Each structure stands twice: as C-alpha cells, then as structure tokens.
C-alpha cells in the first residue's frame, strides 16, 4: 500500500456518461489537497466509442491550469513523478459510462435470495430485464423463451443457502443452460452463480466448459444473512467486460490504474460507508448524485451501506423517465412561474436528446432545478425501500435523520448560487431534525472512494478541506401545526461575536440566519409541544454547536412532508418567496 511519503501526487479520473473528470491531488503542508480539476465531454459513446479522448482532454485542462505535464509525447501517463515535476505518483480511475448491462436474474425464492440479488442489481449499473424464480408460474419453456428474448449480457443465478436446497437450484441452472444454448455463441451472456456453494463443483460439469461462468460466494449464505460484497465484485467484472466490448480505452485506463479501474458507484459508496463511521452514529450519512444517465443514493448507517443506482433516472438522456416514475404536475409544482404542460413536456424530451446542454436563461434554469428536485425525491423513495428497518419507507414516510447530506451532480454543482443548490436539496430530500447540507462541486466523492484503498489519508484530508462546500446547517422541525403557528423559538450565539440572534419560527417559514463558512455558533432550540427537532422526542428542547456554511443557518419549517398549495397562484408565489428566503434570488 502506498503511503503519504511515496505517493504524494495522485490523479483520479472518473468517466461518466456525459462528462469525464480528472482531479489532481497533491500534498500541501503535510496534507492532501485538491490542486486542480479538468472536465471534458465523455467519449465512450458515438462517434468515438473510445474513452481515452475524453480522459486526455480532461487531463489537458489540468495541465493548462497547473502547467504540470501529465503525459509524455506518446500520450502515455508519466508515472511516477519525474525530477522535473512531471507526471503523478498514483493514478486511480472509475467509470459509469457505457451501456447498461442487460441482466436476467434467476433466483429461488422471491423474498429471500431473489430479494438479495435484486438489491444487489439495484446498487450497480444493471438493467434488470427479466426475473425468473421458483414460484414463477410460467412453464419452463416460456421461462426459456423469456430468457432468450431478453438478450441478456449477464445471467445472475442465486438461490439455496449454503448446505440448503440443491435440486431446485440445479433445476434453475439447467433452465439457464438450455436457454443459453439457444443464444448464438457470439452473443452468449456471462453467467454468475452466487448461490449454494456446495453446488459449485457440479456447475462445471452441468453447464459445460464452453460457457462463461463465474462462481461467486453465496449472496444469501444463510436465511437471515446476506453477503453481497463478493458477488458485487463478480458483477463489476461482468460490467467491465460488457463496456469494454462497446468502447475502447477502458483497458488502457485499467492499466494506468494498476488493474484497479472500478465502478463509479462502488467507489462512491465506499466514501459514504467511511463517513458513516466517523459521523454521528445515531444518524445515517446520505449522498445523492444526480447524473445524466443515473442517480445514485448512498445511505450508510454505522458502516452499513445501502447503495442505490437508479439507472432510469437522471437529468440527461434518462430525464424523460421522470414522466413514468412521477408526473408532469409533480415536476411543475416546483416552478416559480407558470408554464404549459406541453412546454414542460417538450423541455424534458428535448433535454433527453441534448443531455449536455446547460441553462442560460433564468426560466430554463428553473425548469432544470425543478427536474432536479423531482429526480432526487423519486430516487430517494426508491432507494429507501432497501434501507434498514426503522429508516425505510415502510417504517416512516419522513426522512430519517442524516448527517451530513452531500449532494453532487451537474445541476447542483453548476447551480449559480449556493442557495439554489441548497433549496433543491431541501425540497428533494426533505431532511428532518438537524443536519448539514454539503455540496460536492467537483464530483470528487467517487474519486476519493477509488483512492481510499491506496491512500487512505487522501479521503480524510480532502473531505476536511474546502473542496466540499458546506451549504449550512439545516434545522427541519417535524410535527403537525397550522400555517403561521409558532413551532419553535431559537437562540443563536456566534462564537466569534456577541451578536446573539433570538427569535421564533412559525409553521411554513423558511428562514436563513447569518452564519458564514468556518463560523460556529451555539444553537438553542425550544420546539413547541408536538414538534420534534431531533432531540429525542417531540417538544424536547436542546442546544448544540452548529457550523456555518455558504448559505448560513437554515430553518426549514415548511412541514414534513412538504406539501405545496393546490392553488397555482399561491404555489408560484411561494416558490418565488422560498428562492428569495434562501438567498437564491434578489
């Protein structure tokens, strides 16, 4: 493993669907710092189908900014750093670009192994096109037809606890074998078996040597125990294989990275798992990344990571799916101006066709931010289905406490003001209690996760540096109260001045108090009866030390869940008012 002494300069590259980002880190005063970032259009898709060009353009931006030569005359990465200061000591890379991996899931029991595999599939870039299980009432021949017509890139077989069911699992394996036999040899999918490990030796004989099968540790080794880590690695390899078939350059990146090229989602999740171990154990850590083709939600509770990669939702080529997963009215309710349903729909379809575009007019920006809110809300609803009991959707409709909440993705990071990004996160996530909103403006999380294995200190140092922007501490009271009724009184005592602020907050208000980045205050909250601010029970008062941020201290007393008025005129006025309240509009 590298250490801070022998790997001072690190270059991280993340190849996304729309953008390829390069981030250069170096040691400054004994701590790792982000030195420069570069961004270029990804070139994994048409017309180039070669990720290298986007990578080189992103790296070239870093060279322009820093003057540091990263590649030699042959366009090869200079590693390690030369005596002239060219090159880097370490290179890490992640990727989410490339086609979705069409996957058929074959499992034993819907609520057990199949459920585990479904969770696994939803935490990475798989496009689940068919699910077959033992209780499936279709005839075997119809199941075979379904597998063949699904044209899978990957068949994932799970089922049977270790030492458990064998016959039924082998019946499923036989079914898969027959179906695979019908698929032209050049198009045969990779098969991953992550079921009863006692069957592993028989698989070679049963499936035959001419099939591409990988045996991974059982995803459900015992009835109440799930082990997805190793199977995820096998899936990662399958995804890498599929994308390498469709675009070149991944192999070169992998070579530069010393064989550690990983999936963006895996690296992203790793950072949040780490954060949940160092932040308040009572709360989870939440990350939301709104990409062009995917939306990732990483929630981690004391090291228990629940990662969701929503391959249907995004603000680029996938944006039109919001019409299926939600509806136009739900998107339009976030707008501060009136717009016809047809114009909104046209906007969405045009955006899907031109995913790289950026809004240059205030109206276009409002449309994009409205979509951002709804995508976050819908992705979070889906992600929460797999959260631990007590925090999942079945247990509670309101968001469980999370600290911090880190947002990233093009629309958030490019938002022209911190208030605008904060409001989109508040509306989409609707946090409860006291939390901190953080923006990852350079989309560093995945790169930090990728680097964590080689240089653990880098993640720690960069997370503590100013590369992540704290938007501010948010207090979100929860409870029933009429609009305008007092829900809490507060006192804010800044540590660096004697100008205390005291006041009361009424239901429906969105209030920002001045508390700049780097400043701390003691905050005393006295909620009214029935109102919970996260001190253990409704009505319970308390005090805590809070940090400032780019927006300030935000008190969001608009209610949970946040319900917007039915009257369009009132709703438009409110949306406009909230933008002013949070400092996103003058």
């Amino acid at each position, binding site marked *: 493993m590298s250490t801070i002494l022998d790997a001072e300069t690190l270059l991280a590259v993340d190849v996304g669907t729309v953008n390829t980002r390069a981030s250069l880190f170096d040691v400054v005063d004994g701590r790792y710092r982000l030195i420069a970032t570069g961004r270029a259009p990804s070139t994994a898709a048409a017309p180039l*189908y070669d990720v290298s060009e986007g990578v080189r353009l992103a790296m070239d931006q870093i060279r322009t900014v820093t003057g540091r030569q990263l590649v030699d005359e042959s366009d090869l990465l200079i590693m390690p750093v030369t005596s002239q200061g060219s090159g880097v000591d370490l290179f890490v890379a992640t990727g989410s670009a490339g086609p979705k991996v069409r996957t058929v899931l074959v499992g034993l029991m819907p609520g057990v192994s199949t459920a585990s595999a479904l969770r696994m599939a939803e935490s990475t870039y798989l496009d689940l096109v068919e699910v077959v299980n033992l209780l499936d009432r279709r005839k075997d021949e119809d199941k075979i037809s379904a597998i063949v017509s699904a044209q899978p890139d990957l068949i994932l077989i799970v089922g049977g606890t270790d030492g458990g069911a064998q016959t039924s699992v082998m019946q499923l394996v036989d079914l898969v074998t027959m179906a695979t036999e019908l698929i032209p040899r050049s198009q045969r999918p990779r098969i991953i078996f992550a079921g009863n490990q006692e069957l592993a030796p028989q698989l070679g004989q049963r499936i035959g040597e001419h099939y591409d099968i990988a045996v991974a540790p059982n995803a459900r080794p015992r009835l109440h125990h799930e082990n997805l880590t190793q199977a995820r690695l096998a899936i990662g390899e399958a995804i890498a294989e599929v994308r390498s078939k469709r675009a070149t350059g991944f192999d070169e990146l992998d070579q530069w990275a010393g064989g550690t090229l990983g999936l963006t989602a895996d690296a992203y999740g790793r950072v949040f798992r780490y954060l949940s171990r160092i932040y308040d154990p009572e709360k989870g850590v939440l990350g939301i990344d709104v990409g062009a083709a995917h939306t990732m939600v990483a929630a981690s509770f004391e090291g228990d990571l629940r990662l969701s990669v929503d391959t249907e939702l995004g603000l680029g080529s996938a944006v039109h799916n919001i019409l299926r997963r939600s509806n136009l009215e739900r998107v339009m309710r976030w707008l501060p101006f009136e717009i016809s349903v047809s114009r909104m729909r046209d906007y969405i379809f045009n955006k899907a066709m031109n995913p790289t575009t950026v809004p240059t*007019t205030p109206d276009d920006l409002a449309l994009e931010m409205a979509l951002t809110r709804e995508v976050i809300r819908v992705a979070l609803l889906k992600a929460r289905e797999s959260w631990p009991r007590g925090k999942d959707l079945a247990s509670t409709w309101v968001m469980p406490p999370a600290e911090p909440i880190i947002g990233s993705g093009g629309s958030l990071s490019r938002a022209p003001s911190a208030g605008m990004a904060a409001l989109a996160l508040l509306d989409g996530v609707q946090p409860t209690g006291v939390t901190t909103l953080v923006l990852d403006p350079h989309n560093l999380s995945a790169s930090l996760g990728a680097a964590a294995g080689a240089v653990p200190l880098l993640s720690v140092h960069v997370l503590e540096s100013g590369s992540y922007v704290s938007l501010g501490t948010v207090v979100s009271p929860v409870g029933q109260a009429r609009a305008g009724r007092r829900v809490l009184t507060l006192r804010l005592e800044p540590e660096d001045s004697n100008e205390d602020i005291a006041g009361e907050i009424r239901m429906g208000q969105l209030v920002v108090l001045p508390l700049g980045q780097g400043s701390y205050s003691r905050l005393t909250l006295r909620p009214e009866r029935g109102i919970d601010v996260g001190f253990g029970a409704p009505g319970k008062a308390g005090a805590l030390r809070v940090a400032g941020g780019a927006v300030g201290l935000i008190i969001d007393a608009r209610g949970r869940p946040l319900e917007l008025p039915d009257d369009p005129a009132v709703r438009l006025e409110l949306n406009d008012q909230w933008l002013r309240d949070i400092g996103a509009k003058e």
Partner: protein
Amino acid sequence: MSEMYITSVTHVLPMTTIRRQRLLPVPGSITVRVNEKVQAADVIAQAEVNARHYFLDIARGLGVSVSEAPRHIRCQAGERVEAGDVIAGPVGVTRRTVRSPAEGRVAVVQDGKVLLEARGELFQLRAGFPGVVIGTDGSQSVTIEASGALIQGVWGNGVQEFGVMRVVGDGPNDGLQTNQLDVNLRGAVLIAGMCDHSAPLHQATELSVRGVILGSMPSDLIPVTRRLPYPVLLTEGFGQRPMNSVAFGIFTSNVGREVAIDAGGALPQPGQRPEAVIPLPSSRPVSLPDDVVPIKRGVRVRILKPPYLGEVGVIKQVLKNIVSYPSGIRSRSVEVEIEGLGSANVPIENLEILQ
C-alpha cells in the same frame, strides 16, 4: 492545449458519401453479395426472431423412467423437424410416441429432455436506401454505401420508408394543415416546417403518404406518431421549432426526387440517428462526412437552448474567458454569428455542429 471539439455533429449535407451498417438482431442469412446494387426496399438479410420454445419431457411422454428416456429419443440437436414428426418412441404395446408440436429445430437434447425451437417470425432487414453493398460479415451485418444528400434528424418514430418528396406549406416556419393535404400528395413524402396537432398526421395516413419530415412537433404527439404506418422524422426537436434553413434548402432543392427515411428508434440510441437520404448521382468520389469536428472559426453550428434555440450560425471565435449568462451559469463559450440576428455568446455545451 488540445483542440476542443464537439462530439455532437449533425450532418446536413447536400452531397456526401453515406455508409451505413445494417444489422440483424440475431445471426441469420445474408441475401446480397458484395458489390451488388440494392434498392431501398430490398431485403438484404433475414433471420428468425421471437421463436417459441417447447420443452418435451420424454420420460413423462413415453411413460418410461428418466434413465431409460434418452435411448428412445430419435433426433439430435440441430436437426430440423416438421410438426407431427416423431421425436421419441415408439414404446410399449401402445407404441407411445412424443411428436413435435411445431415445425422447428431440435435445440437441445439433455437428460432425457428435448428442447424444440419452433420457427420464429421472419425478420427481414432492408437496405433502407439505394446503394451498393460494400461489405458483410456473412451472418448478421451488411454495409451499404451511396452518394447523395444526407439530413440527420433528432427523433424518429421508428419506421423506414422510401418515396418522392413534396413540400407542403410556404416555408420552414409553416405548420402542416389538413387543408393542405389532398389526393395529389398520395404516396408522397411530405416536408413541412412543423405540425402542432394530430389531425394532419391522420389525414396523411388516409392519403397513404410514405413519410413526413418535420422541423418539430409537440412531444404529446409521440404516442400518435408511434402508431402511424409511415415514418415521421424531426430535424429540430419537440415544440414549435421551424426546420433549420440548411435542411429545408436541401429538401426544397430536391423536390420530386426520392428520399429514403430511416426514422430510427425512439429516444437516443447511441450512434444511431434518424435520417433522410436523397440518393444523387455523383460524377466524382465524395468523402465521408466527419464525425468529429473541431470547434473553430467558420464552423456552422445549431444552438440547442434558449434564447437562441434552433438558430443556425457560424462560430466567429472561441472565447478565452469563461462567460456568465443571465441564469447565473458560467461556461466556456464561443461567439456565434447567427443568421439574421447578429452575434451572440453561446456555451459550447449548447451547440451542435451542423455539417
């Protein structure tokens, strides 16, 4: 610094070489040879798709043990069978047999079971435009080349067709109206600026038109166009956007000629653009269009976002400094000379090359 470029290039060319690979969904048979001339409607390859499968349990069918079943099977994997052909048996005094339930192919024989693949639907791959076959892999793909005008669109309803072009309306801003459609347009490919309701599209169906090429239409017409028997191709996008002047000019200058429309798939399939090809003879070889074009002075672009949505212009200069826009967004930009509007700064992300 490396040259910047935009990967989003839309070809709108009055004369170019068009080379397209046509691909069967599964391997099948290729029905053309290299150097063979083909017409748009010619079948160049075909394959069976969506085949139904029959799982025949021989032991159960014959009433014998599982271990005994294999020796009664009378066919081998890969063998073709007709409906009613004996697959296994006869066995016993009643001479029980298992017969093929359909015409097809024995796909798998394994552990006393037979998997039969019945004949599927015949999928026929057509050339799409007149040209010459320049390559094939022998089982799944055929590459065709032609010279002519190429107008790439941004959206299509997934249908392919070929017909004679007729312009409807007075210009690229004009909408398709029912009162413009009469029997004189029967069997034609209609070119119009836009269409804002479904009635003209339905009327066009009654006239058996062979296709409609528009600048734009509202996105709520997507479900309507998906049910139409003819291709609908959009050159600009959704909403009310006139067809760009370059594309409209190419169409109008070729009125009366035949155009092949490949209205492609639905929303963006990487690398596959819906397009119109107007085959034209060429006295000399013409080069293939560039897929990657550097951002530099003189390059023609189309703007993809308001306030200049749909406008076509030419890059005057690549700006060195980041530009701030009324939305507050800051972006690397170019100065574009827009036809009839003067010059304006536009983020590079909001451009596509129109070449």
